[in-house]
């Protein structure tokens, strides 16, 4: 006998709930909760991580991310304008840059800058030490993604806006700066925030540059503690710290998107 669509939807939903309940039950049966707690949530290890996990590691992660994002945003804007330029070589250069850094893993960029540059240019180094290299590497990778986002944002601003600005006597550069770019950034704020979340996680690659106690960021800090304890609690600790950064950002993005939806 054929079920009505509504009845069938209800049956399917109950099946889904049942599968979920079985999975949770199986987990509780097979898992030894005491061991789990010792391995993942050892209080002593948490206590040992405190307060360095915040005042050194989280702080450094925030600094690397902020510097990398700022540099990446500026470079991304320049690349976006180059992509839209009427001058051929600018367009080709920007396209080449974007394709390269979007296609190459961030890990490779970090290794190239951290190890490759000192080898290729003996006696010279990227200024700013770890922070300088981290800013450069995160910025180069971030810029490649952000450039395409910003370009799309600029193109999403109606042509009439430029025409109105030009008809008031504004030169093209002024119209771009005062009228088009501010509107473009409004449009791309949600995707740019997503990019910030991705960069936050990519900043964990700074550990590839080698570290001292002063330059430890979250991932390196987690590994350090992990080496001392035969225990996964440090990973849980740093995961919580990453989530402390990324979850609020996600919420902000969702708010902005729903507000943009309403404004339409």
């Amino acid at each position, binding site marked *: 006998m054929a079920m009505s669509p509504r009845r069938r939807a209800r049956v399917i939903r109950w099946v889904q709930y049942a599968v979920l309940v079985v999975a949770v039950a199986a987990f509780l049966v097979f898992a030894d909760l005491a061991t789990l707690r010792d391995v993942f949530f050892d209080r002593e290890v948490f206590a040992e991580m405190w307060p360095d996990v915040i005042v050194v590691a989280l702080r450094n992660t925030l600094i690397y991310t902020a510097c990398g994002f700022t540099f990446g945003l500026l470079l991304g804007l320049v690349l976006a304008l180059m992509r839209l330029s009427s001058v051929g070589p600018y367009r080709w250069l920007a396209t080449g840059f974007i394709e390269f850094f979007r296609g190459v893993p961030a890990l490779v960029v970090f290794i190239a800058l951290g190890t490759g540059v000192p080898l290729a240019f003996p006696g010279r180094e990227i200024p700013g030490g770890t922070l300088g290299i981290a800013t450069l590497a995160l910025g180069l990778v971030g810029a490649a993604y952000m450039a395409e986002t910003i370009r799309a944002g600029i193109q999403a601003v*109606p042509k*009439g806006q430029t025409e*109105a600005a030009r008809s*008031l*006597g*504004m030169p093209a550069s002024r119209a771009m700066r*005062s*009228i088009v770019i501010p509107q473009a950034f*409004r449009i791309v704020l949600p995707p740019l925030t997503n990019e910030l979340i991705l960069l936050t996680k990519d900043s964990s690659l700074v550990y590839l540059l080698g570290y001292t106690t002063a330059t430890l960021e979250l991932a390196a800090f987690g590994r350090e503690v992990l080496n001392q304890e035969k225990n996964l609690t440090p990973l849980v600790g740093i995961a919580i710290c990453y989530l402390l950064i990324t979850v609020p950002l996600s919420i902000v993005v969702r708010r902005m998107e729903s507000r943009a939806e309403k404004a339409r």
Partner: protein
Amino acid sequence: MTEPQPRTGVPAIDVQNLHKYFGDNEVLKGIDFHVDNSDVVCVIGPSGSGKSTLLRCVNRLEEPTSGKIFVEGIEITDPDVDVDKVRTRIGMVFQSFNLFPHLSVMRNLTIAQQRVKKRGKDEAVEVARKNLQKVGLSEKEDAFPAHLSGGQQQRVAIARALSMDPDMMLFDEPTSALDPELVGDVLGVMKDLATEGMTMMVVTHEMGFAREVGDKLVFMDGGVILEEGDPTEVLANPRHERTQSFLSKVL
């Protein structure tokens, strides 16, 4: 090189043998046309006739393919002319208003005054207030465009153009995007401007406005001017057969 100065005693707008192609498509097929100082010239015609393109060539938002355009005696089709400078003397109002949505009404009116005309903030605000009053929207200076009706937005757009103290105004179908009950307010503001002696070139479908306010009516079709003359005369006794058929459809 001395910079060309605007001259008096010549037409405000003088278009000579203007051609414009979009790709292979010839949109303007040799236009000769002028607007005298303090005149209101209305351009009518079916859609696709090239009337908006003609208007947009006058401040070079469209680049003419060939021909010459003089604005107050300055050849703006000369590649060496500073087109930004000439544009400050030509106000333009668009069908879709094109207010800057990220700026308040006041900032919409002051930004070009400050950035282009290099006026101080106080002076710019004063000029803006004067023009907002002229269009009857003094109380809206802190509002953002999205909170205004279409008619209000278009009046703000007119005030924005006026704040540059232009010598002439171009209107590109200024009431075509408006709800019918809002058209009157915008036309009223335009009529006031005409009374003050502003030189105006208006692409429009408002035959009543053309008859009442216009000094000259131009009928375009297929990229050429088919007929021009006194508005009452052209509307009452169109000579050209295509003018007759167009008017019979819109009147």
